[in-house]
């Protein structure tokens, strides 16, 4: 034993008068560190997707309805409720939050005598830490989800204007699986899809490369999956939660990824559609997406279905209004042929009213579904419109779809900003013309799909916004036509609608083109319905106002499609047809009153 070892321990006195480290909570405040994982906070950005609940490994989160909070398209109206008896403050819920609404405060003390109190809905319950500015939030460079969409191979602009080949090439299997993998399967999109397709389920099928299961899921709600996989307006993607911090899932392309991998001849076997005749017959007017969708679901129920179509081919607007570079004919036929293969009869070139009286149909059939669409182009109704070089957009598309030359010339002005206008413009480009699109509002107000606008620009169409056509005049040459248009100022709509253009008379332009293609909108034509029936049917503006299950005041008559809804797209027509099929079945089996 050394002397040093005896003395050395007395160094302990050196620290005798040090300030204690102990912090006197709760007398003194001791805030958590700026990124402390304290109690949860949730902002108004929350849309109730429930991804926090999915990832919570402690089962500490419930999604609950909150009083005063409405569910709507893109918001389930549910909010996360935390059970602090289970929470471990790992913050996986914060990291995964698709809208980044969820975070944590640096507040960490909550004292109460009631052990059941530790259960609250973050963001909506009043908690003392709701205003905390500090606390854990996900680092910008840290991700548990994949925010970038997998690109799809497409024809270059030069290649695509050279012909009518399909522009989008479809995903490879690897790409489709990677894109499907991004989905969080929250299901927020299902309510927004007009057909309420089982979107998360079929995306999972793509991820699992199970295309047969995928096809069955698609056909539960949509017998036009090859078509919709290409040209759907994909309202679902506008509410996709992945769109909040990156690109929404390419839901439309993933639908296509399924149908592209299943050959048509295997459909029957995979879908297992067995038709057991039930002895009743239903008539359908219009072989567009609405009519054929109704025909499919009715046929599956065993109804004998006859479809009346005024044109020579089925498909309606999909055939005559959508050019083949967006929807190749064989893909539309894939959908249509499958429906017809179940024994749906289609009578082509048959006009109701002219070839067959409406009265006969309503008397002959147990029920009738009418989806004749909007096929009457609205006129410009400006001076000089009757000029022979003023064409209608629908006519141009119809000509091209039917193999006729619309004769647009080499310098074309298209009036309008919808899909018909974009397609008329792109078709004209493919026919070799220089194309200018005149639109009354701004590009961001265009009702056309953003992709169509983008692609038409890429293909060299010139988009002139805020241009109001005022007059059509003869040009120096009879093969040309002159348009007078004025610039527009945009004014806001006080009811929250689209901003409205107002003509500025002092800023007018005159331009001469080989032709002017008007595509400002379409209306319907229903003169074939005799007055005695019409009086019992409700209309608003130029459309039917159907009741529950698409039924009209004429109990046997169900209606749908563009002529009966405000959305005027294929997927809405498909759902109208499906819904009417449900209604007709109920009507004919006595569970729907007439």
């Amino acid at each position, binding site marked *: *034993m050394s002397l040093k070892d005896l003395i050395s321990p007395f160094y302990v006195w050196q*620290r005798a008068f040090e300030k204690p480290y102990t912090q006197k909570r709760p007398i003194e405040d001791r805030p958590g560190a*700026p990124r402390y994982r304290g109690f949860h906070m949730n902002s108004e950005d929350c849309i109730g997707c429930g991804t926090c609940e999915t990832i919570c*490994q402690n089962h500490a989160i419930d999604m609950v309805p909150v009083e005063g909070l409405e569910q709507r398209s893109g918001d389930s109206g549910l909010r996360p409720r935390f059970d602090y008896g289970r929470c471990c403050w790992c913050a996986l819920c914060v990291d*995964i939050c698709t809208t980044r609404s969820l975070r944590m405060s640096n507040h960490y003390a909550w004292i109460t005598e009631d052990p059941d109190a530790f259960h609250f809905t973050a963001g909506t319950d009043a908690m003392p830490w709701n205003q905390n500015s500090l606390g854990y939030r996900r680092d910008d460079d*840290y991700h548990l989800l994949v925010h970038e969409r997998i690109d799809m191979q497409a024809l270059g602009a030069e290649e695509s204007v050279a012909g009518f080949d399909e522009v989008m090439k479809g995903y490879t299997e690897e790409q489709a699986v990677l894109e499907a993998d991004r989905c969080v399967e929250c299901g927020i999109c299902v309510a927004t899809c007009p057909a309420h397709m089982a979107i998360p389920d079929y995306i999972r099928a793509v991820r699992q490369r199970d295309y047969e299961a995928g096809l069955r899921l698609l056909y539960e709600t949509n017998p036009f999956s090859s078509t919709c996989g290409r040209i759907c307006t994909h309202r679902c993607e506008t509410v996709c939660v992945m769109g909040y911090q990156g690109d929404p899932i390419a839901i439309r392309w993933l639908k296509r990824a399924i149908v592209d991998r299943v050959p048509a001849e295997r459909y029957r076997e995979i879908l297992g559609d067995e038709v057991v005749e039930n002895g009743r017959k239903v008539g359908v007017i219009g072989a567009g997406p609405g009519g054929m969708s109704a025909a499919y679901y009715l046929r599956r129920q065993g109804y004998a279905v006859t479809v009346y179509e005024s044109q020579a081919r089925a498909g309606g607007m999909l055939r005559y209004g959508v050019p083949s570079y967006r929807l190749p004919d064989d893909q539309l036929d894939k959908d249509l042929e499958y429906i017809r293969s179940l024994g749906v009869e289609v009578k082509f070139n048959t006009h109701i009213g002219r070839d067959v009286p409406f009265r006969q149909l309503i008397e002959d059939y147990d029920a009738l579904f009418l989806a004749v669409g909007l096929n009457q182009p609205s006129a410009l109704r400006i001076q000089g419109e009757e000029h022979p070089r003023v064409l209608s957009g629908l006519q141009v598309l119809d000509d091209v779809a039917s193999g006729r030359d619309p004769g647009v010339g080499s310098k074309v002005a298209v009036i309008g900003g919808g899909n018909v206008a974009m397609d008329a413009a792109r078709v004209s480009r493919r026919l070799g013309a220089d194309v200018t699109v005149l639109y009354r509002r701004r590009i961001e107000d265009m009702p056309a799909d953003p992709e169509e606008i983008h692609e038409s620009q890429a293909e060299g169409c010139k988009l002139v916004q805020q241009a109001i056509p005022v007059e059509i005049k003869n040009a120096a040459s009879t093969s040309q036509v002159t348009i007078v248009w004025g610039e527009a100022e945009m004014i806001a709509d006080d009811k929250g609608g689209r901003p409205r253009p107002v003509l500025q008379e002092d800023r007018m332009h005159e331009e001469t083109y080989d032709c002017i293609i008007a595509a400002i909108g379409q209306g319907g034509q229903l003169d074939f319905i005799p007055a005695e029936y019409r009086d019992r049917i409700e209309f608003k503006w130029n459309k039917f106002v159907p009741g529950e299950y698409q039924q009209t005041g004429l109990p046997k008559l169900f209606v749908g499609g563009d002529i009966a809804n405000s959305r005027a797209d294929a997927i809405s027509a498909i759902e109208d047809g499906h819904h009417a099929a449900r209604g007709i079945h109920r009507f004919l089996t006595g569970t729907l009153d007439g």
Partner: protein
Amino acid sequence: MFEPNPPVDLSSGKYLKLWQGPQHPGITGNMSLELTTCGDEVVDCKTHVGYLHRGFEKLMERRTFIQNFPIVCRIAVPEPTFNEYLYAAVVEELAGIQSPERAEWIRTLNLELMRLASYLMWLGGIGAAFGQSTVYQWTVTHRDYILDLFEEMTGARVYHMYIVPGGVRGRLPEGFEGRCHEVLNRVEKLLRDVEKVLFNNVVFKARTKGLGHIPREMVDPYGITGPNQRAAGFARDLRKDAPYLVYDQLEFDLITATESDTYARAWVRYQEMHQGIRMLRQCLDRMPKDGPFQARMPNVLHWQVPAGETYAKAECTRGEYGYYLVTDGSEYVRRVHVRGPSYTHAIALMEKLAVGTNIADIAGLMVSLHTYPPEIER
């Protein structure tokens, strides 16, 4: 090579059964020692565990790969981040993910801070076990300074949940390096005081020298690793032998001793704390200040790791800490086995060393092996 302790005849009246624990025997966590004593000498020792069994390995089999990351830290309460790192390491290896360089440096910093905090707690424990409670007050306070650093780095003091498969969860906070240096300086100063008060203390020396001697030959047959092994003269350290993270870029000395008793083990650990501070300073000065800290990850909600198996290990304060992961290509873990060094030290080894020890030294002996019961039970 299991050699049972000699049998005792309890009916002889010479012996007394004495339970130490399951309250912390020492400060190591809940387990109990069933001691058979003759006078104040221990003649037999049976260990009992199960007070902390939460079934982590089983729980992990029904959670997804990301869901497992927040629970692993709980397997070794005083030193959680080794679990986080090793879990990340095995998942990354089987998933084919490489965590970025910046994350590797931050992980190293995190693990060495953890080691220092854990050793500080242990140092207090060994002091307290031999009547030097002042050391305990000092070291636990200084451990708290490190927990403050963890709080601002990771968002939590104990269960950091910061090292995640793919990297780390966030960049270092603004000004962290400076505050970290400051804490290291304070700890270094404290260590010099502890050396005077504890290691140069006549009482401490008298009670620890010769206590719990582990013969060299026992080391491998009992699976002894870490400082317990190095104090017996083995120059083995995974940071040197199988460098992981950025240890191959750090300068530090491998500490060994030969006496292989309680004092030697304490001294090795004490020296390693100085080496740890040395490494931490290198990390702070040399780590990249920008660049990614997370690898590109798939959507973690349905992350499937390819089928395979691997074992990753790291040198924690107690020795070889390891994760053995078996995957089957699904979204779930097939099997995880967590190898905690206390598994061998606190049971087979303790039962052996306790025999012939004075009752009063049992707690000190236990602390000198530095065991954490939660990592035994997983």
